[in-house]
């Protein structure tokens, strides 16, 4: 039993596929396939990424830095940081709660709940913004009441924050769920049996086990929150210096033919995206190792 498990772990895809002659392709086919894949990825991924930094530094470092002297650009950066600063922690708390309820317990209607959590991801960003306009806008359900009480949500900061929360709603929960399910309940049950409280069990046992998935979930949620365009565009009202986020400001600059400035602001968001990918790679490597360790430990036990 133990032998078979450790042998399957060694043949996990990451460790590479050992090809023999009968189950492999001729070298020319191999290189042709690799060349096609590299060309496809190069054209679709490398070129757009390269053009962002190329255009941003087109007029040198001074031209790049000049973009960040514009007060409207700085206001846009501040608003983006504010919206993400509210949306990400809220969605993180939700993600952990949802993953705990769904991953650790068996109850009726679980798959329906997962589908509902996925909903914001499959809805068009434009529709995501529109639903808040229909709820809080002038002609909306709550619009007249809000006007009477002097509360502005649409075409103001609260609307932007709400739309951001909606579009980044599933990410933390979705990253945590497979991890929390894979860990199982054994360790938590052991901790509780040994007299730990519920919160102690969560912070000392569960959290260390899911920390990489949580980190990637939060970083991804943050990247999407800072980069959201369609939904925020609908609720923002595009008031320069007041309700413009970074992506909306990029659109304004681009449409004004201020390409260097547009791509300079865009380069910040592109760097954030690259950082997200790095965290994902490291996190995946870490969780894979953690699970392999766990499996090896279990194999030893069953010996």
């Amino acid at each position, binding site marked *: 039993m133990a032998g078979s498990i450790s042998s399957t772990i060694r043949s996990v895809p990451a460790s590479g596929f050992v090809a023999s002659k009968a189950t492999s392709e001729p070298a020319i086919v191999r290189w042709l396939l690799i060349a096609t894949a590299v060309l496809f990825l190069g054209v679709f991924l490398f070129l757009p990424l390269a*053009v962002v930094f190329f255009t941003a530094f087109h007029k040198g470092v001074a031209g790049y830095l000049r973009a960040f002297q514009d007060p409207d650009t700085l206001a846009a950066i501040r608003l983006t940081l504010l919206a993400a600063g509210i949306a990400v922690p809220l969605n993180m708390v*939700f993600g952990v*709660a949802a993953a705990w309820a769904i991953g650790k317990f068996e109850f009726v209607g679980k798959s329906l709940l997962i589908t509902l959590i996925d909903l914001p991801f499959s809805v068009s960003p434009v529709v995501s913004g529109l639903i808040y306009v229909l709820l809080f806008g002038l002609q909306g359900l709550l619009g007249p009441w809000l006007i009477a009480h002097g509360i502005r949500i649409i075409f103001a900061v609260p609307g932007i924050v709400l739309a951001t929360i909606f579009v980044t709603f599933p990410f933390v929960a979705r990253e945590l769920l497979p991890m929390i399910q894979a860990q199982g309940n054994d360790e938590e049950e052991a901790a509780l049996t040994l007299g730990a409280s519920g919160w102690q069990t969560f912070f000392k046992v569960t959290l260390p086990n899911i920390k990489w998935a949580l980190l990637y979930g939060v970083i991804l949620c943050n990247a999407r929150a800072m980069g959201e365009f369609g939904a925020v565009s609908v609720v923002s009202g595009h008031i320069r210096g007041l309700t413009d986020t970074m992506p909306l400001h990029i659109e304004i600059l681009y449409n004004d033919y201020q390409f260097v400035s547009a791509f300079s602001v865009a380069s910040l968001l592109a760097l954030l995206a690259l950082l997200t990918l790095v965290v994902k790679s490291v996190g995946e490597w870490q969780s894979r190792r953690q699970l392999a360790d766990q499996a090896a430990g279990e194999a030893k036990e069953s010996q």
Partner: protein
Amino acid sequence: MAVIFKQKSILPGFGLALGFTMFYLSLIVLIPLSATFWKTSTLTWHQFWHVVASPRAMASYRLSFGASLIGAFINLFFGVLVAWVLVRYSFPLKRLFDSLIDLPFALPTAVAGIALTTVYAPNGWLGRPLESIGVHAAYTRLGVTIALTFIGLPFVVRTVQPVLGDLDKELEEAAASLGAGRWQTFTRVLLPAILPAAITGFTMAFARAVGEYGSVIFIAGNMPMRTEITPLLIITRLQEYDYAGATAIAVAMLVVSFVLLLAINLLQRWSSGRRGRESSQESAFLGATLKPVLGRGEGQ
């Protein structure tokens, strides 16, 4: 309440966690979404149909769905190819290419939009050579298709990759020893095994592309009846203060999203069911633990 709503467990916090989940879900997602349907119910069926089936709306559906479908097919073909190359072969910078697959998922859509437009504009890096052979990419339907291909790129690769990695080599050895050529082994043995995952990825890419806005509007040209995508039409209606019109088209899109989401869930069940049956006993253990981490379904 059902007879047994929840199985017994000694772990605490179920009530708190589920309660908060339901509260937050209702507040952020369910109540605002139902407001949309409430708004539509103020329209008569005739008015609704008049907006949803207007020639301009129909032209936008044709473009949005048509370009998304072409993009998803391009991603189906190249996605399987890229997944194959990443799992089976080793080549320089492979890790880098592997990590970069998720770029369309992490890169803000507005950034992708202006970057793609700059690459494919008539004086762009690829736009100029294309222009010289008479192909106009930016500000045409081709441009829309390029942007929608970009946005759906990670899905097929990421659904096929783990399935391909888990396949037993014995299957291919058996095929080879029975006299099958490599191509025959691929089409008869490997392709049927990865097909459910590939179709799941295809549907995800399609669903994502249909609603896409930010990466498309810069490269599309946005001419009514010609290069106007459906999400843009909703925005146009809103800017004209035609809330009922915007809502009617939005509801039509929401219904399509729900149907696609349902299809993806069913496909995933089919896909994991097949994988469970085909993997041998020892990898069934891995199926429960490692696969969710390796084959992260990209948010879906």
